[in-house]
């Protein structure tokens, strides 16, 4: 049977829309993930377009120190007379990139090592397992402190690298376990019989199967990265842009904002932003879990 090019084309178009539908179904499939995705999208858009809509000036203005919230300054102003709302907006991209990069790094490390360990096995597997064991044992916060003293932490990349040092180990183990169980499955054996390349086996057959797990973990690591980065800010070991949410929180706290009604909003704004962002991320991960799990159970 010969197919006309038009039909083939339409089939591919069908497929791409179907893919989009699938993505939409995953992310908007239930109330939780829909809400979570919306929150995340909101912050991403805020990070990209926010600074254009609400341009931020770092200029200090001693006459408008610590103003209470108003229409002009929805979150009030800080000690230096700068608009807190615009600070939050400008800081969004920084926070997002720290979270995203940290998740990217740890997922990449976890994936590479976990898949290699699962695929290669033997002494390599044992070594990786042992290393993850060490990283799971040493308490992370103290080592963050030491690492932050050791390296200059002054941009999202270094920040994210330090944060991901400890977040890959658990995930690496889980991926390894999944790969080990997957690679004995029949459909992988068939690939061997059919002499499919290892590249195909890893990227086309194995990866899609751990994809949902990785996606959910990616989101969880993002959440942990934010918690960790703000914690490090609170302990004051990283260099920072004053607009970073953690930095705003720390400065507000150290300026006695906890006891000054005029500056409650200065302190509360970053807490609120962090909480809402985290909330979105958690809802999304839970929603994704709901979406993927029933099918995973059928397996």
């Amino acid at each position, binding site marked *: 049977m010969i197919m006309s090019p038009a039909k083939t084309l339409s089939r591919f178009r069908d497929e791409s829309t179907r893919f989009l539908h699938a993505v939409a179904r995953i992310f908007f499939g239930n109330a939780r993930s829909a809400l979570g995705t919306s929150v995340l999208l909101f912050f991403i858009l805020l990070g990209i377009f926010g600074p254009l809509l609400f341009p931020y000036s770092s200029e200090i203005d001693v006459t408008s120190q610590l103003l209470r919230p108003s229409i002009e300054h929805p979150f009030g102003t800080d000690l230096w007379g700068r608009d807190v709302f615009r600070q939050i907006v400008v800081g969004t991209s920084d926070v997002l990139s720290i979270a995203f990069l940290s998740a990217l790094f740890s997922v990449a490390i976890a994936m590479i090592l976990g898949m290699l360990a699962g695929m290669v096995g033997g002494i390599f597997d044992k070594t990786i397992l042992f290393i993850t064991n060490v990283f799971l044992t040493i308490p992370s916060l103290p080592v963050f402190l030491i690492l932050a003293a050791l390296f200059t932490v002054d941009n999202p990349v270094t920040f994210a690298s330090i944060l991901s040092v400890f977040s890959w180990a658990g995930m690496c183990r889980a991926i390894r376990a999944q790969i080990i169980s997957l690679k004995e499955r029949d459909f992988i054996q068939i690939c*061997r019989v059919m002499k499919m390349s290892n590249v195909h086996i890893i990227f086309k057959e194995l990866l899609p199967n751990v994809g949902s797990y990785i996606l959910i973990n990616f989101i969880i690591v993002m959440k942990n990265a934010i918690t960790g980065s703000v914690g490090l800010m609170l302990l004051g070991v990283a260099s920072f842009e004053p607009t970073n949410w953690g930095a705003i929180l720390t400065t507000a706290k150290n300026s006695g904002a906890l006891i000054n009604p005029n500056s409650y909003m200065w302190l509360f704004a970053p807490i609120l932003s962090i909480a809402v962002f985290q909330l979105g991320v958690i809802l999304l991960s839970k929603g994704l879990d709901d979406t993927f799990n029933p099918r995973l159970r059928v397996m």
Partner: protein
Amino acid sequence: MKPLIELKGVNMVFSKRGSFVRDEKFFHVLKNVNLDIREGEIVALIGESGCGKTTIGKIVTGLLKPTSGEITYEGKNIYALIKLGKEFDDYRRFVQFVQQDSYAALNPVRTIRQSLEAPIMTHYRHDTREQVGAKIDSLLELVGLNPPDQFLSKYPHQLSGGQRQRILLARALSLDPKLIVADEPVSMIDVSLRLTILKLMSDLNRRLHVSFLYITHDLATARYIADNNRIVVMYLGEIMEEGDASEIISNPRHPYTQALIAAIPIPDPEFADLDRELPIKSMEMQSLEHRGKGCPFVPRCPYAGSECTDEIVPVTVGERRIRCARLPHVPVFSTIRPGIVRTGGSNS
């Protein structure tokens, strides 16, 4: 007819690594197996679970390398081919595998199209997308999935067991193989559907001249698919008896084959109240770890004698080979189980 694949003196030993607290263990899974599969024939490999039939399937498909012995493909040793590269690729293409669990054999997160496309695109690199698409369509039609469009974008869990099994066959056929190793392909689908799948297989065998190595524990289906072909009976990693299908079923000569056939339930009230005791001595089974050179069936065999513990030379009777040292002492099957042969024969 010249043999397509030949296993010569294949032995398979699995070992469990030892340590300070544990000795190393060896399991002799296959012992001196000789098997040949000719072009365009269906060979049914029968044996109870754990007898090594799946291992043979894996050896034939190249998933496992035997500990000793050689496998030849069209007269050439395939492990010598590996070094030549290209010809092993051919071997990979020409010998395909259909597994027992059709759900596990398909990647759950890939659509049927993706699962079918990948091997074709690997092995027929010069095909355009349209050609591949057309090929897939015709394959699906071949295995009786009509219209193909209805199945292509589905995921495995959206199909029934029978449909998935057809997909597996289509995938195996997609590389134009000369031999398909089918490892219990129907054991996990409804009895009502089994027949259609088996029919499809013998149909494909006839139309495309593809050889099948049909691995099963179920004598009835073996008899059905290997009609006019061969049956090979295995026990504990050794081939007990092999020969023409109808001959073996109507007149099993080896005590193990006799026991196997006697175990088939008889849905005929005429024979239902016959003595159903199996013609074996005990249920004791030889361990794979410590096995002698003699017949493994000795502990169960009611006819066993002292010579059974020595090396056994198969007796060849025409096309048939029986591996039994005390063949003259084994009674003719119809004397111990009258009626079975007739019933089995009338089913076809």
